[in-house]
């Protein structure tokens, strides 16, 4: 008899989801997938709103990466109004963004994935959480939380608020830098730099230990795919630049401006999930990855000393391009290093003191803008009328683009850790861990949709034989 395993809800991810694993009569894997179970419909909600509200209201799509939406929307409005954003405004938006990256990656590495790494995939679920880390390794916990705090504080000072920042607007940014604020930001950056010699080896050590304990992560959790990320001056970039698509070998297949995204990105509906999949269309349809590892695979360069040195280490261990699912955690670490270095460059760039905002008048037309959310490329596309009212909206978020690969990883993890094994509860956490590697953001994915808990269902011949969630 066929059977289905369910994990519901998936925990320690951003939003609500469940997982199903379908087995054949002989107990082998039929298929598996992640179900996103919420729909808010922002593409409809935004219609009729004032365009200048977009950076504020679209931030509410996601409490984890509000800054990504805040900036993508601002870029789209600048495009629609046909203004050139003053260079100082772009630098300050980027500074806010680097704070955001430090916060989001630290949260993902330490709070969401940390418990699996510090306590092990099979640790008691009752202690497998950030409180458990505080008890098991208080020094690391303190430093990790401090690093996240610094990121969020930079984001908050420049953005006006931490969660749901507000200062980036059509035509620039309303934040005004002064010497006092510069001094405080510099102190935070210096402090973050000083934490790196402790944080970097600690995270790498934990990751390598996990690979030792679970060789399947190195041998079987491999997902070769295309990749997409933003390039500027031949390096990774997060809020401006062209999009670069690479194939499985890392060869550049295409570079294009974001306003051409609708030629190449194709969304498709999955009947069992509110989240849509996205494929890259170029001589056929390709599954692809976005996010820190996709950016590194595509650009291979950050342009700062420590990050480039760490990337060289990364490539030595994981290859270039790298397709090891678990190495996405390492990629977040490398980007965190870069974000600290880049923030330092920006705050010391004389251009940051220039004009920060130009007045804007909307002409009737289209506004397209993007950002590289911590977890991957995010695109906002609006039709705006001559009174500045939104008439149509289309959003493509990071996790949708990773969806096909996430499902591949779920199948691989089910294959290596669940099928034919006896200790369901502990091993199912391996499936969740594989999902956490992508730092999926289901609030975003449910712009369209809302949130994501995890359940794993085992079905057999269409009947659910067993539902596993954390407590049974």
């Amino acid at each position: 008899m066929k059977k289905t395993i369910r994990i519901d809800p998936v925990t320690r991810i951003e939003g609500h989801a469940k997982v199903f694993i379908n087995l054949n009569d002989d107990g082998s894997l039929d298929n598996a997938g992640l179900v996103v179970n919420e729909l808010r419909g922002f593409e409809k909600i935004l219609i009729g709103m004032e365009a200048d509200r977009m950076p504020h209201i679209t931030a509410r799509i996601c409490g984890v990466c509000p800054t990504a939406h805040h900036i993508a929307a601002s870029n789209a409005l600048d495009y629609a109004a046909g203004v050139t954003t003053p260079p100082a405004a772009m630098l300050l938006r980027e500074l806010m963004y680097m704070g955001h990256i430090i916060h989001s990656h630290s949260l993902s590495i330490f709070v969401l994935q940390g418990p699996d790494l510090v306590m092990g995939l099979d640790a008691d679920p009752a202690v497998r959480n950030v409180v458990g880390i505080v008890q098991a390794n208080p020094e690391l916990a303190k430093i990790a939380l401090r690093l996240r705090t610094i990121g969020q504080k930079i984001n908050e000072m420049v953005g006006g608020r931490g969660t749901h920042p507000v200062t980036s607007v059509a035509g620039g940014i309303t934040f005004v830098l002064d010497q006092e604020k510069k001094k405080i930001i510099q102190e935070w950056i210096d402090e973050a730099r000083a934490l790196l010699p402790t944080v970097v080896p600690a995270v790498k050590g934990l990751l390598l230990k996990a690979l030792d304990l679970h060789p399947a992560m190195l041998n079987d959790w491999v997902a070769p795919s295309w990749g997409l990320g933003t390039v500027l001056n031949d390096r990774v970039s997060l809020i401006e630049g062209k999009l670069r698509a690479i194939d499985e070998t890392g060869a550049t297949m295409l570079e294009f401006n974001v306003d051409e995204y609708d030629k190449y990105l194709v969304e498709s509906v999955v009947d069992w999930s509110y989240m849509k999949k996205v494929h890259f269309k170029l001589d056929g349809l390709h599954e692809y990855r976005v996010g820190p590892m996709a950016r590194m695979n595509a650009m291979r360069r950050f342009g700062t000393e420590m990050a480039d040195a760490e990337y060289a280490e990364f490539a030595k261990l994981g290859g270039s391009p790298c397709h090891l699912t678990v190495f996405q955690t390492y990629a977040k670490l490398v980007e965190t290093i870069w974000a600290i270095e880049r923030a330092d460059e920006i705050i010391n760039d004389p251009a940051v003191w220039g004009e920060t905002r130009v007045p804007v008048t909307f002409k009737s037309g289209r506004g397209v803008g993007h950002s590289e959310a911590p977890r991957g490329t995010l695109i906002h596309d609006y039709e705006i009328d001559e009174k500045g009212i939104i008439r149509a909206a289309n959003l493509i978020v990071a996790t949708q683009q990773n969806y096909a690969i996430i499902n591949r990883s779920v199948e691989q993890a089910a294959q290596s850790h669940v099928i034919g094994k006896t200790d369901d509860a502990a091993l199912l956490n391996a499936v969740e861990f594989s999902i956490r590697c992508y730092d999926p953001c289901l609030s975003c994915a449910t712009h369209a949709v809302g949130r994501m808990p995890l359940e794993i269902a085992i079905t057999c011949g269409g009947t659910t034989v067993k539902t596993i969630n954390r407590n049974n």
Partner: protein
Amino acid sequence: MSEVTINTEWLSDCSGCHIAIVDLHEKILSVLQAVKIQRCPVLTDIKDYPPATIGLVSGAIRNEHDRHAAIEMRKSCKIVIAWGSCAVFGGPAGAGNIHTPAEIGRAVYLDNKTTTSANPPSSEVSPLESIVTPIDSVIDVDLYLPGCPPHPAFIFEALSALVEGREPEVNRRTVCAKCKRNMEKTDVSEIKTNSEGLPNAEQCFLSQGYTCMGSVTIDRCLAPCPANGVPCTGCAGATMQILTEPNRDIRTEIAERMSRLTKIDRNVIVSSLERAAKSHYSYTMATSMIGSKPTFHIKKWIEDENADYEAGGVA
């Protein structure tokens, strides 16, 4: 004193309220010492609803799963806090109430510029309810803590008070109370959109002709927006006066103040706010305290605006 236990749950929301807890920064460690966090989908792997002293529920009721989860939280928790503007008022997802679930499904799956058209998902997913509602439409709520998200200082006060067994201190002031801009009488004669011109940094936005919602919005934020050059967008929801008095509303209250501070006619302001009602009421329209006011005709305002747009014939 027995240990204070906490369950949290997120319904239809963005997860920002949960992040606001982490934004207690250094204080998070003292909170973790004072309470025991049980179910908390973003932090822990506890997947059911163990009995708890305090239940924090963020998000609105959008689908059947949300309704079920809200009921489970009420059953398991002694004190339930509606946490954040979505739980209290419906939040931005509440703006979905202008549309039917079928219209939303059409915009996302059937009639979307980059999507290969297909019927909305039908298996495994929880069907949408016909409208978005705040959680108190489904369960009794003991404390309301709006904000998008509430400033961590308010979350800390609420949790500390409950741990210490006292009533939380809550203010009823508006965002204006913490705003340092000066209200001045001006000769401004036209309403400006937020992106028009460059606002003066010292003067009240209303004096300058910008639509700022600070005077009609409860302070659960400490007024960071006007301090940083951005008019308030009302994310913490309306004040008690507006919620409870039938003859007061967001648009009329703003129009009163702005018309007194400028030379703009009150009716012009009311009409301008009605035309962009979806922006100004986005956080609160799903609560019956706003949505059921006899003077609240958002569907008609939107139809009028659409009719004008279509008649204007933007080619």
